[in-house]
């Protein structure tokens, strides 16, 4: 809460009422004749053409799925096909006015939107730019297929390019827009302003807001349209996206030209069904989607329902809404009423709706009625319309034949290059800044109070005699993270950071203290307490070209952004065919002392998901070096921190934490203490308890323990650990995660395989108990303690003379616990 905003109790407590303005519903009432001033005859025909392209494209896929052929061309497509026949006017109307710089995001049912926006972009691009886009995309791979033996205009070539690229992508061909790695539900083509479609319902609801945030903060032209469905309005992430997009601070606190709303339109394609659930009357309560706008902000999101069966009505709405976006009055909610003829997917028999209902909507078919109105208005004749159909049917057959021809449209050769997909999971680039311009800051870095304060600190924890400096004097772990982040803020103009309490508070754990002074509002701000939108918007921000540090405070809140962290953040680099980069550093803090929902180490959950890099530094030196690497890279990094050690000084790196910039490569574990009798490999702050255990082992049992800090989970280089095990023959793997299913077991398994012949005992996992985290006072029964290491060695590795175990590491107990599931 910023101090400039005074909450006056006498105002806040005043009596009154909240009033709403009427929300327009299907208010467009113009005829074609009346619109002649706004559209040329060519324009009208182009609208008709684009709708037919979509109808025929979807018809083709439907026939392939249901009859195994189209126009006599047989093909088997085992993958998904969520079709939008019936929704053409909505898609074309939405895309018609959009510029190439306007971005659309979509859903699983977005073939129509891809084609509509693509055709719109082809129309608006000049031939040279269009040709350059096609020639440079994947070095002309897609273009070469459709260009061969073709003699038409560049725009006609563009149409072939669009239809073929989308179709080849749906059929998982390497010549598709995303090398066949996206498929039907994720296909997109960014040079035409078509951004990722999403197989998760509502997935674009927060990602698109991040794209709008990117456009606003980096002063990029254009707006963002989130094409989501009527059923997605029930999804948490969509609500979080709406809330994030409508934050007061854009108008109240952001300064200068940054003041004003986000350029985003939530375009709800209301086809009235969510799979088989009828949103109006059964599964939702809003009656009309546009109603929701009234609940979001005083502007009611400028919401209205538009008749999506009339393309001119939708175009009219977009012309008006664009005006509002340009006046910085976003976000906007548009409900485009439409209807899908096919089922959710070809396997859906539409048992949830009557034949009469479908026929009634088909009787008012948007293409047929629009065509009739054009003929009635004498803009064209039926013969011309028929020739449009004939032309499109011909190009569909031609593009289908090309896209299923294994020679011109091969699939990825995973036999020849079995690691090809693996090579696409990370982009592994080293980039100082995502864009070359001067970063906006409030003062030179050297004048920053925190920077000045840190410069006076002791960069090594101990003095020359080995005595520790006072905590206040020590350069702490939080200083290491701050150092790396502030440095990047002064290097990369696109870098933004946000999350809960990130600004005035300086972050709940004081990492960002001092950043508020250094940065304008739009580079560091507080978000709503809604982790899905924090991470989701960061994904959108990064995929458009920015670098971003979202922060979700407690690790336990990862569940709140589960889809964003598990399905979106890790997947888009590979799923895009490496078109997109994802330079997102997600800061996650592992708690302690705060009980069951604020003290969990969930590193294992994210390490399980392919496509995320995962690090967990616990010394100031490592924290700064790994944060520098994270911020220099182009891949999504989940950066774990531990609340146990934010104030810890550097105890290992000789000479202390360097003042200048340095990087620590991901994946390299670090030997924190050398030894020869047993290796202890730790993840996170457990390191310090392992070091205490090493001291006990040495003093009481004459054993010398080698303690290795994993530092990274993904990637991870086993060589150093295996070398240590070759020396000691014994290893304990430890961390604070509950041990069942944890990454500790992954480490133990790999070490067993890689060093089996050198092992004197099986690797032993010392993790937390499979319980809820109890109160701080009881934590010693839950988290690994120094004595547990001794017990584990005594019981599992080598019996220690005179040792009496406090923890039961026996085989019988192991079996008993597993039987009970605790």
């Amino acid at each position, binding site marked *: 809460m910023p101090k400039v905003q005074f909450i006056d109790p006498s105002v806040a407590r005043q009596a009154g009422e909240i009033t709403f303005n009427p929300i327009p519903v299907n208010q467009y009432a113009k005829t074609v004749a009346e619109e002649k001033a706004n559209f040329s005859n060519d324009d009208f025909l182009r609208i008709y053409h684009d709708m037919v392209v979509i109808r025929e494209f979807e018809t083709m896929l439907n026939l392939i799925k249901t009859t195994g052929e189209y126009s006599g061309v047989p093909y088997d497509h085992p993958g998904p096909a969520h079709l939008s026949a019936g929704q053409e006017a909505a898609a074309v109307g939405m895309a018609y006015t959009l510029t190439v710089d306007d971005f659309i995001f979509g859903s699983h049912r977005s073939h129509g939107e891809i084609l509509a926006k693509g055709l719109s972009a082809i129309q608006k691009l000049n031939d040279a730019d269009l040709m350059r886009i096609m020639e440079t995309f994947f070095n002309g791979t897609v273009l070469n297929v459709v260009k061969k033996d073709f003699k038409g205009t560049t725009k006609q070539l563009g149409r072939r390019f669009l239809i073929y690229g989308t179709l080849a992508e749906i059929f998982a061909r390497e010549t598709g827009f995303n090398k066949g790695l996206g498929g039907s539900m994720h296909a997109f083509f960014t040079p035409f302003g078509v951004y990722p479609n999403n197989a998760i319902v509502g997935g674009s609801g927060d990602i698109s807001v991040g794209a709008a945030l990117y456009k606003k903060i980096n002063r990029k032209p254009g707006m963002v349209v989130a094409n989501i469905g009527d059923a997605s309005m029930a999804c948490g992430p969509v609500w979080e996206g709406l809330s994030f997009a409508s934050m007061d601070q854009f108008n109240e606190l952001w300064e200068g030209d940054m003041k004003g709303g986000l350029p985003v339109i939530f375009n709800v394609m209301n086809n009235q069904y969510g799979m088989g659930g009828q949103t109006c009357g059964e599964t939702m309560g809003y009656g009309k989607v546009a109603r929701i706008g009234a609940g979001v902000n005083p502007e009611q999101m400028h919401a209205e329902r538009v008749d999506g069966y009339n393309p001119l009505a939708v175009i009219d709405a977009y012309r008006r809404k664009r005006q509002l976006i340009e006046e910085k009055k976003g976000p906007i909610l548009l409900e485009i009423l439409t209807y899908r003829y096919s089922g959710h997917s070809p396997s859906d028999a539409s048992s949830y709706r009557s034949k009469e209902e479908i026929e009634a909507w088909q009787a008012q078919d948007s293409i047929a009625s629009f065509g009739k109105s054009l003929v009635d208005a004498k803009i064209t004749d039926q013969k011309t319309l028929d020739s449009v159909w004939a032309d499109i049917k011909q190009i569909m057959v031609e593009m289908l034949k090309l896209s299923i021809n294994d020679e011109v449209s091969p699939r990825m050769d995973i036999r020849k290059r079995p690691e090809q997909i693996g090579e696409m999971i990370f982009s592994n680039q080293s980039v100082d800044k995502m864009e070359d311009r001067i970063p906006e800051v409030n003062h030179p870095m050297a004048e920053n109070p925190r920077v000045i304060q840190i410069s006076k600190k002791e960069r090594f924890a101990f003095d020359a005699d080995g005595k520790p400096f006072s905590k206040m004097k020590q350069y702490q772990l939080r200083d290491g993270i701050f150092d790396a982040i502030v440095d990047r803020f002064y290097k990369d103009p696109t870098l933004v950071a946000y999350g809960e309490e990130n600004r005035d508070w300086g972050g709940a754990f004081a990492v960002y203290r001092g950043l508020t002074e250094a940065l304008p509002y739009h580079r560091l701000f507080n978000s709503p307490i809604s982790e899905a939108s924090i991470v989701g918007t960061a994904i959108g921000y990064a995929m458009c070209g920015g670098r971003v540090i979202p922060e979700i405070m407690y690790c336990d809140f990862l569940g709140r952004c589960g889809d964003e962290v598990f399905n979106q953040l890790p997947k888009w680099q590979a799923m895009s065919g490496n078109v997109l980069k994802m330079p997102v550093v997600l800061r996650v803090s592992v708690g302690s002392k705060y009980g069951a929902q604020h003290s969990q180490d969930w590193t294992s959950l994210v390490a399980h998901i392919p496509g995320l890099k995962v690090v967990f530094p616990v010394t100031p030196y490592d924290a700064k070096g790994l944060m520098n690497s994270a911020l220099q890279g182009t891949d999504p990094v989940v950066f774990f921190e531990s609340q146990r050690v934010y104030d810890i000084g550097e105890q290992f790196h000789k000479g202390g934490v360097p003042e200048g910039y340095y990087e620590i490569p991901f994946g390299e574990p670090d030997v924190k203490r050398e030894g020869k009798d047993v290796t202890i490999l730790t993840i996170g702050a457990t390191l310090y308890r392992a070091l205490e255990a090493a001291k006990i082992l040495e003093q009481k049992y004459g054993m010398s323990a080698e303690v290795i800090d994993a530092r990274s989970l993904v990637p991870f280089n086993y060589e150093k650990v295996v070398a240590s095990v070759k020396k000691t*023959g014994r290893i304990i793997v430890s961390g604070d995660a509950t041990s069942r299913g944890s990454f500790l077991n992954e480490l133990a398994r790999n070490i067993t395989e890689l060093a*089996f*012949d*050198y*092992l*004197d*005992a099986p690797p032993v996992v010392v993790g937390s108990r499979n319980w809820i985290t109890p109160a701080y006072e009881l934590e010693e029964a839950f988290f690994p303690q120094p004595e547990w290491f001794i017990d584990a060695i*005594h*019981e*599992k*590795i*080598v*019996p220690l003379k005179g040792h*009496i*175990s*406090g*923890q*039961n590491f*026996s*085989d*019988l*107990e192991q079996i008993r616990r597993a039987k009970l599931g605790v």
Partner: protein
Amino acid sequence: MAFVVIMPKQGQSVESCIITEWNKKKGDQVKKGDLLFAYETDKASFEEEAAVEGTLLELFYETGDEVPVLTNVCVIGAPGEPVDAFRPGGAVTEIIETIETIEINGTIETNGTSPVAQSVGSGAISPRAKNLAEKEGVQLDGITGSGPGGRIIEQDVKAVINSHPKTTPLARKIAGEEQLQPASQGSGLGGSVKAKDLTAINPIYSNDFEIKKLSNMRKLIAKAMHQSLQNSAQLTHHLGADARRMLELRRKVKKANDNGYPVNITLNDMVCFAVVKALRKFPQANAHFLGDSVKYFNKIHLGIAVDTERGLMVPAIRNADDLSIQGLSNQMREIAASCRKGAINPELLSSEAASFTVSNLGNYGVELFTPVINLPQVGILGVNTIVPRPKDLGDGAYGFVPYIGLSLTYDHQALDGGEATRFLKQIATEIENLEFEL
């Protein structure tokens, strides 16, 4: 101090033995080496001797009892010493009692390390310990593991290593590879065990044999000889040559030597000289058989079998056909000396270096033998001792004439019987008509 006699473990798979006879009874005085009892496994019978002197205090088993190996069988000691502690079964009870005590004391509420509950069974060994044992040549029988549940871990193997004398790296390697035991006292520096000190000693029985590693030389010979017989079609023809001419020449040489003639031309030199001459006429015998082709030599490189302390060596005398008998004699002497000194050029020892070989066992009195070809050569001449044989001297008169036996082994793959016979006969003819000037 009471000494316990256990039932020895006779081999990996033996779990128990049956006592077939007691040679002593309870109360008997026994001396070191006295026979205590006989026992048998399903495969063999054995006897157990007393390792110490004393009174046989107790017998835990009787004749006919089946006794698990490594179980206490009897106790030798001073009269009056208690023996119950050694009674089989007693020890286990004791361990269990110990555990109960701990539990009653309540020092731990969990069941802790329990050798009974957690026993991983005898013979469990960590991969690291196993590898170390193999590398260091440590036998694991009888070692008690100190790891959890009695698992043998690295420190147990190290303890065994430290209790043994130092072993050279080669000895360690060989012991590990061949399951040999180091002697308790080695012959190397400071008593360290060298490879030659390794034996397959059974620690319980005395050894009645000794296993020695083959020298590399022996290995090579073994391999070459075995391969020769495996890979060619060898057969031997025997034929005698009248040796009178040769013996006469030998007498002349001796006499000349007495008068200061420098070259001692032996009978062997003469045979070799005759062989060289015969080979000139039978180039098909001066050859290597190469499977799909035959290599005929323009020159004659004569292989000479030399008996040395290290084993048989067959150096080649290159270009023997260029030499006079004196030259041949000199070279043969020199080359044999080099072999015995170990100073021979190894290239000359290769079977490819010679085109034909002569092996002379005549001076040992061998009358007939079948020499083995040095492949890829096609023949080898064995030279036997000279024996008197009756000969038709003409006119119905028979007399005993000294004959030297010649045994030609040839590879039938390369030569036919007729050719070989004619070649052998040619050698005999050359011997019988030998001539040279002194």
